[in-house]
């Protein structure tokens, strides 16, 4: 009688241990699944950013410097091509845009001698106050050293949700995690709309900068274009 009980207890203990280990090693940012949603694996090809009639379109970035104050203020980028220089317009990189299901790391070394970022897969490096910034999706966040999952996307009806915890802005020999959610799981995923027929998408997210010279500021990202499945 005691043996089966002991076996059961040992079995349960083993199961609990396996479950605990599985939870512990699961990378941050693994996509939640829903029966009605569909995974999008491929590349979100980017439309170049543009600005006209007081409105930015396509791919752009802004840096929010007002922290948690209700009235938003943005850091102007003198090198911006937009009339409103708080918008930095993006152009697609050599991969055409943001890939899901894989990382798009920076080259080695990530910067040239002047601190210009060399990461050019997602967007082309573009000047931000005279020094080029680039973006990459990295397996290990250089700031927190956390290992994260590759970007993943799901669409539920027209609602697009993208998890990209390793999304990193690179500038002046410094790394700024711009993940959604952050590598520690805080914050929200990137969200937007997706038209299954035309494959056109709009994706936005805000990610707070933790550490470094822009600590407390937030990046506001707007990616737009057409999804290209793998």
């Amino acid at each position, binding site marked *: 009688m005691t043996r089966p009980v002991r076996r059961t207890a040992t079995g349960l203990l083993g199961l609990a241990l396996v479950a605990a280990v599985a939870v512990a090693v699961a990378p941050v940012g693994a996509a939640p699944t829903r029966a009605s949603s569909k995974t999008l694996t491929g590349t979100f090809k980017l439309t170049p950013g543009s600005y006209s009639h007081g409105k930015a379109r396509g791919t752009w970035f802004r840096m929010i*410097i007002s922290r948690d104050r209700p009235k938003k203020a943005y*850091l*102007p*980028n*003198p*090198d911006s091509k937009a009339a409103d220089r708080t918008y930095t317009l993006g152009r697609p990189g050599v991969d055409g845009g943001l890939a899901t299901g894989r990382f798009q790391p920076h080259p080695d070394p990530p910067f040239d001698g*002047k*601190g210009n970022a060399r990461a050019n897969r997602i967007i082309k490096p573009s000047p931000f*106050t*005279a*020094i080029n910034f680039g973006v990459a999706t990295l397996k290990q966040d250089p700031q927190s050293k956390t290992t994260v999952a590759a970007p993943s996307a799901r669409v539920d009806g027209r609602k697009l949700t993208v998890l990209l915890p390793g999304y990193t802005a690179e500038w*002046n*020999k*410094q790394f700024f995690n711009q993940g959604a959610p952050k590598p520690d799981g805080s914050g929200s995923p990137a969200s937007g709309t997706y038209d299954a027929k035309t494959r056109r998408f709009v994706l936005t997210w805000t990610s707070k900068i933790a*550490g*470094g*010279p*822009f*600590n*407390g*500021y937030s990046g506001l990202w707007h990616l737009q274009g057409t999804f290209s499945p793998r």
Partner: protein
Amino acid sequence: MGWIEAARSSAAGARRWSLVALAVIGLGLAAAPVIFQMFDRAPRGAEMMQAFTPFMTDARLNGFQRHIRDIDAGVREADRAVAASLEGRGAAAHTRFDRRFPGFAQFQHDWGPIDADMTNLLDTIQANAGNYRAVAALPSFRLFPWFFVVPGLLVALLALAGALAPASWPALRWTIVAIGLGLVLAPVAFQMFDRAPKGGRMMTAFETIETRAKVEQMQGYFATIAVGQGSLRLEIVPALHRAGLDGRQIAARFPDVVTLNRRWVPILNDMTPMIGAMSDNVDNYHAIKSLPAFPLFPWFFVVPGVLIGGLAFASRPRGGRTAPAAAALTPSQGGAL
């Protein structure tokens, strides 16, 4: 015979109390880092010291001062000579210049207070570079808790061993005396009486610098300077070109503007990591600030060291120098006395 027994009993009692006192002091010493949360705070101090190391050299600090001078010279020249060259002389002409280049006008307007504040900040940091280096020359902050825990536990354990095995006390006693002496000498060996007060002065000087508000102000300065320099580089100099000046003429007539534009990337390379280091270490600074004041630290070694060494030295064993003399007294002699 009676007084010999009494003397022996009294000596044993005194030794017992010495051992208890030693154990208490040892445990107190070992517990001090826990009480002061040194295991959390001291590594943060080490982190801060390490983060500031690249910026605290004379060359780097002089470089920062040069950056400020370069920006100041460029702003002044653009506001005067360049403005006059593009729009003519007089208040009305300058107003036109300001309207034409609002990003630079705002920068020029804000620059005076920024210059004064940043110069003051850099002067403070530079004045404390020696103090910083004195603290940096101390053993790593990470080790500090162990400087209390290890001798403290050793003393407590040896005192316990002395109580449990009185025969071992003569040897143990000298070990404890040596530990006490080590504690007294450690601050001397590490020049803590000189370096710790310097660390205290550095911590006081950085009190107004290592705050979240100050860092945010510096971040704001960066935005203002970046926008203003951008206007100079991307609007004003191209306007000079359009006015018919070539690069050589601009360099000859407006050398400070050209120098600022040429040196802008090195300035960014240098200044933004410093703002980053300041920002990243606000919490670390406050963690160390919560520790007891730096100048007290040598005394945290000396006082327990003297107590431990003194108690162990005074706690002579029964079979020690006094005891044989007492033992030599036979009962009859004792009785005769």
